[in-house]
């Protein structure tokens, strides 16, 4: 493997300076680094902590994380962009995941996905999409491990199985009416 670069050597020319980061981001990054940077293979735990606290992994946090772990910014960016779970921009107020894997397909997941896109007003994208009022981000997921009770979805942290179109509407109804 290559030796780690100085953290600024791989920075893209137009990268945001760390000082441009909002205070909340800097605080979250510092807290995550204080708690987790000592772990072996600390990068994923740190990125999880950031996303859990902020809802996403801000670009502005990348230089700090890179510096602390003696990695290049490119390496940190590469990890964030490789994993589907991490996102670099804030999601909607709620996150709805619809399983599109084989087991759920056998129980109508494709129709459920199409219904979810139109019901929530989200674009039909393999990478997910947020609707116009930012109330919901709709994401595809490839298996929630509820395959004996397909089709399955998750609304924020809660999982739901045997989801008919009617049940879907019932489950997502509160999301678009309530604020935050």
């Amino acid at each position, binding site marked *: 493997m290559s030796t780690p670069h100085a953290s600024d050597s791989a920075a893209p020319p137009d990268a945001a300076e760390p000082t441009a980061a909002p205070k909340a981001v800097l605080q979250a990054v510092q807290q995550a680094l204080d708690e987790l940077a000592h772990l072996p293979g600390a990068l994923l*735990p740190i990125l999880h902590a950031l996303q859990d606290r902020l809802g996403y992994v801000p670009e502005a946090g990348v230089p700090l994380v890179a510096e602390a772990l003696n990695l290049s910014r490119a390496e940190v960016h590469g990890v964030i962009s*490789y994993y589907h779970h991490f996102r670099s921009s804030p999601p909607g107020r709620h996150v709805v995941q619809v399983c599109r894997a084989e087991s759920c397909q*056998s*129980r109508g997941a494709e129709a459920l996905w199409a219904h979810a896109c139109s019901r929530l007003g989200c674009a039909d994208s393999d990478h997910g999409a947020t609707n116009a009022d930012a109330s919901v981000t709709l994401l595809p997921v490839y298996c929630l491990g509820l395959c004996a009770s397909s089709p399955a979805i998750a609304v924020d942290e809660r999982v739901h199985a045997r989801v008919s179109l009617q049940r879907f509407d019932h489950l997502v109804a509160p999301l678009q009416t309530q604020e935050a």
Partner: protein
Amino acid sequence: MSNKIRVFVPRDSAALAVGADEVAQALQAAAGDAIELVRNGSRGLFWLEPLVEVQTPAGRVAYGPVNPEDVPGLLAAGLLQGGEHALRQGVTEQIPYLALQERLTFRRMGVTDPLSLADYEAHEGWAGLRRALAMDSAGIVHELTHSGLRGRGGAAFPAGIKWKTVAHARAAQKYIVCNADEGDSGTYSDRMTMEGDPYVLIEGMTIAALAVGATQGYIYVRSEYPHAVATLNEALARAKAAGFIGDSVLGSGHAFHLHVRMGAGAYVCGEETALLESLEGRRGIVRAKPPLPALKGLFGQPTVINNVITFASAPIILARGAQFYRDYGVGRSHGTLPFQLAGNIRHGGLVEKAFGLTLRELVYGFGGGTASGRPIKAIQVGGPLGAYVPEDKWDVPLDYEAYAAFGGVVGHGGIVVHDDTANLARLARYAMDFCALESCGKCTPCRIGSTRGVEVIDRITAGGPQQPQQVKLLRDLCDTMLHGSLCAMGGMTPYPVLSALNHYPQDFGLAVPDVPVTQATQAA
């Protein structure tokens, strides 16, 4: 003990997903002080979830599927005494679906409170670890080898050989890593184990640590399983506080420190070397082998990396002896496999049986056919990288070698049923598309081949004079992926694709061959 009546409502994700928490709340509110509510794991009879059980003198009596609205009626019908009701399923252990199983690895599943150390201990918990502590490394490895246990993650490599390699490696630090990145659609036995019997995984990994001389362990769980992560973290804290893991395992002087790490939604991290890369904090890119992880694994050190069910099988092998486990199964497939009935199936659930039963027995005998009531068209066995098994193979005994002989894959035991509305060309296209989405990109056949595969399938289904040529192209492409990919992601995506093409040509807009497809033209 008080004389409260014990009532069980599962805390497994699949039960929560159909309202188990609401049922538990309704029961607690209505029955109040009369009951002791236990949140057990799931029995794995998922069409009956939420499955409420009541302890009676005759044994535990089951009711399901129970909705919160059913609770007042159930209580009025004498639920707490095991009274008659339309939802009453009888004594749980006598429900044929359960009674006909051979539950070894899953013998506590749904019976106990997953986090109760007392429950675990009362049901043969830690017996394997205690016996292992009285043995030397070679003795433990010998037990595991003699049991015939093979890797339950899908590759079916003999677990004893892997442990022996690590045991003989010389290094200051060795690791035990559990692959809990259960990404295959149609599989949930790892999730059930982590949520419903976490101590068996902890015990199995600790036995492995003693066998090879490792002091650090990691459980890599996919991010789609937050409940499993929470349960494991709590179980680890309790096991450590009670001295089962930590600085001195049961006071033996052997240290074993176990940690949970979360994946981040990359399917390919289920491949062991990609998982190790991810644990080290990098992109989950597959490593070339050799060197084997057993010699240069996590952080370059000798590492035992096994699936959840492989580790979870070790305690009973140590507790009851290798011969006990070995006597289950057929041929070179010893022991049991927790088959997972999924997809379009009436009675979906977990069926732990010795190797050697047939797909027909599973999907009709246990599963009761499709949920939709329509005829079964295709069954995908072994996850997204397994073949679609046509009806003429449904009577082949489920064992690793018998399946490999016709190009099938037993894999992790996932079984996804599709009825006659399924379009196999569409499913084949999905397999290539999924491979394109999830390929780590390291090797060309997988990275480029999957994208070309989607395009070629689209040209085949479009019809026209170019069709025969495109079919040949697809077969050539699959051949390249099969033999030229670095790991199973690209190397096995051709299994579902070619099995769909061979057995369901009409779905691709192709003429049905007059003679059955010969074995020579099938996948692998």
